[in-house]
């Protein structure tokens, strides 16, 4: 029997690891820090919610749909906004601002979609407790197991993709050195598109998982985006595994840390939960700016084995 707080913390951390991993993949391939992750995440939740409310069934059956929608949104962003800018070799800040514009457009579409659901189907999508659609396994909500399995499965799939397939190796090569990869005949366009597909899909999937612990609102993604950024920065921004691991660390510390502190100092601590990811981020930036993936773990553990398969370290 897992205490409910721990169960919630696991769900939250798994969702953050999916989201952080998505941000990291997009950033390491295209140098774009994706602000649109907020609204992509919220869209993933709303499409799952609409299907559950209108068609019925368990939320988990619609997770693949969430992933597909996110991948679609990512592809749209890539083709309309990101590709022309990448070709012009604009600065990171300009890339960020362009995704911010995309985020605002998606956000307005979420609001319209909410009104559409309210007016046509008499739903109340502005405030959704998604976990009411959940079922329990051995006294614990199924979201705990499923989110954890999903997060681990996604990381494993990404790992297999990056190390075992030819295209995955090509993607890593492009991350390491885009010019050299182009010389060898790798089409950077395909790599960038793949990163947006995977990153966007993970964003929406993460949103659908995140709604299991948060109240689903149109600003859900915007509220969680600081934690998402903290996860990917803690992960070091240049390794997909780092992003996922960072998500777990941030999620668990934020949830359990605030809970433990509240037991120690008093319940007022709970309202300052959002400060914890910030503190983690500041510590990460000042003491190990290359993130968890940049720490020489193998040296620390006394292993001489050369770490292989990591996303690579780029200066």
């Amino acid at each position: 029997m897992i205490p409910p707080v721990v169960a919630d913390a696991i769900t939250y951390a798994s969702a953050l690891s999916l989201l952080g991993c998505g941000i990291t993949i997009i950033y390491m391939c295209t140098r774009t820090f994706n602000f649109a992750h907020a609204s992509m995440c919220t869209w993933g939740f709303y499409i799952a919610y609409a299907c559950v409310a209108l068609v019925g069934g368990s939320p988990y059956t619609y997770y693949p749909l969430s992933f597909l929608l996110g991948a679609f949104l990512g592809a749209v962003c890539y083709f309309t906004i990101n590709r022309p800018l990448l070709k012009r070799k604009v600065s990171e800040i300009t890339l960020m601002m362009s995704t911010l514009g995309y985020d605002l457009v998606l956000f307005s579409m979420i609001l319209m979609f909410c009104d559409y659901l309210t007016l046509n189907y008499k739903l109340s999508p502005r405030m959704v407790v998604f976990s009411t659609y959940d079922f329990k396994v051995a006294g614990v909500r199924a979201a705990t197991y499923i989110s954890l399995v999903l997060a681990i499965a996604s990381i494993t799939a990404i790992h297999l993709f990056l190390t075992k397939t030819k295209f995955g190796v090509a993607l890593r090569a492009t991350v390491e050195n885009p010019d050299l990869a182009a010389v060898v005949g790798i089409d950077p366009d395909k790599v960038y598109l793949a990163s947006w597909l995977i990153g966007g899909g993970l964003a929406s999937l993460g949103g659908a998982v995140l709604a299991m612990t948060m109240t689903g609102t149109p600003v859900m993604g915007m509220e969680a985006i600081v934690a998402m950024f903290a996860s990917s920065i803690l992960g070091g921004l240049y390794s997909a595994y780092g992003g996922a691991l960072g998500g777990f660390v941030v999620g668990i510390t934020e949830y359990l840390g605030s809970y433990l502190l509240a037991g120690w100092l008093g319940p007022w601590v709970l309202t300052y939960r959002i400060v914890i990811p910030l503190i983690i981020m500041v510590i990460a930036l000042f003491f190990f700016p290359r993130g968890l993936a940049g720490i020489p773990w193998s040296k620390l553990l006394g292993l001489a084995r050369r770490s292989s398969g990591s996303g690579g370290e780029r200066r």
Partner: protein
Amino acid sequence: MSFLKPVKEKWAELKTRVAESWGRLVERYRILAYLPRADVLACLFVFICLAWLGAAKGAVIVVNILVTFALFLIITLSLNLEVGLTGIPQFGRVLAVIAGAFIVGGLAGRLVALMLGMEAGLYYAHHMYNYRIVDAINRILEHNVALSMGIFIMYLVLAALSGAVFGWLTSRPAIRLREAYLGISLLAFGDVMMWIGNNWWPLVGGTNAVHIPDPFRWAGDYRFYVITVVILAIALGVFVLVERLSRSPFGRTLRMMRDCELAAQVYGRDIVRVRTLSLVVGSAVAAIGGALYAIYVGTCTAMSYTRLTWTFWPWAYMMLGGIGSNVGVVLGVLVFTIIRTLIFIYRFELKYLPGWPPWLDPVYLEYTFCGLALILIVLFRPYGLVPEKPVSTLPHEQIEEMLKKVKEKASSP
């Protein structure tokens, strides 16, 4: 596609004919040559909209637009100083705005209460006492213009000081970090400040608004107009300040550092000092903007200082106007403010248009429009309406003379 050929020919012919007649028109009326420029079109749009709104909805709307314009102009100019001139990705503009607003709501209000011998402790901000205390203060201030103005100046000075302090604090990471890392950390700082204000009620009342002793109560019914004029004057002052700064040696150092940090270092500029100074000045100006907003509204609610309104809108204004160009920023803020007001005013007319989908509330179009504008600017007009120009420090004639002298020297060895 051979069947399209005659159509294409017709189209080309039509285009040349239109161009010819346009050329003839321009020859007759020289001023028309300026028309196709984006900045001139934007100015025209501004004038037509202001005249239309003034005629159709009354002068109050125009005054309202001017206040919003002036407030956001102050904040966007400060953003332009940090982003456009210094090259810091300031995604935490809201932090300095909050620094100004909270100091007015939390500290300056208490100082006034202390001065007038009222409750100024922790419970000043409690929602059960605050409105009574502030009401009593306001009744005193109503008849005392000198005291009111003194309090107003104290507000501004305190706001600038607290903005400078927060600017210095944010300059610490700004020295070490670059690009995306820095932008994200600044964004997170701003968010956290808002949550602290929302949760810790002794600061600015938490979820309830804290009222602010009103330094313009003496103006009675004309308060709205007086405060508009004051804010506009301060905005003008800020514009002159930032424009002068960007033409000074300091501003040129900032530009040099933005374009090539190595070159700036080679020429002996202290990067750390210059970056810090720019952040301190910019944050102080933004804090004054935040304080003016709080004074104008009369209350200070933590949750109204979101990053969307106080960071991302100013970014959009600045990018529309032209990053690094102060005149462009003025135009960008004006155009965006007018469009947002237009959407807000005409939302019901839009909503009851025949065929308008009932689930599409026009208020959301604000976000759609702003997002699309950002994307389109980035894609098609990356330098904005009024692109940044190299600043000339000396009068043009003097430079010409110097050039002539140099050329003479070169030609006669």
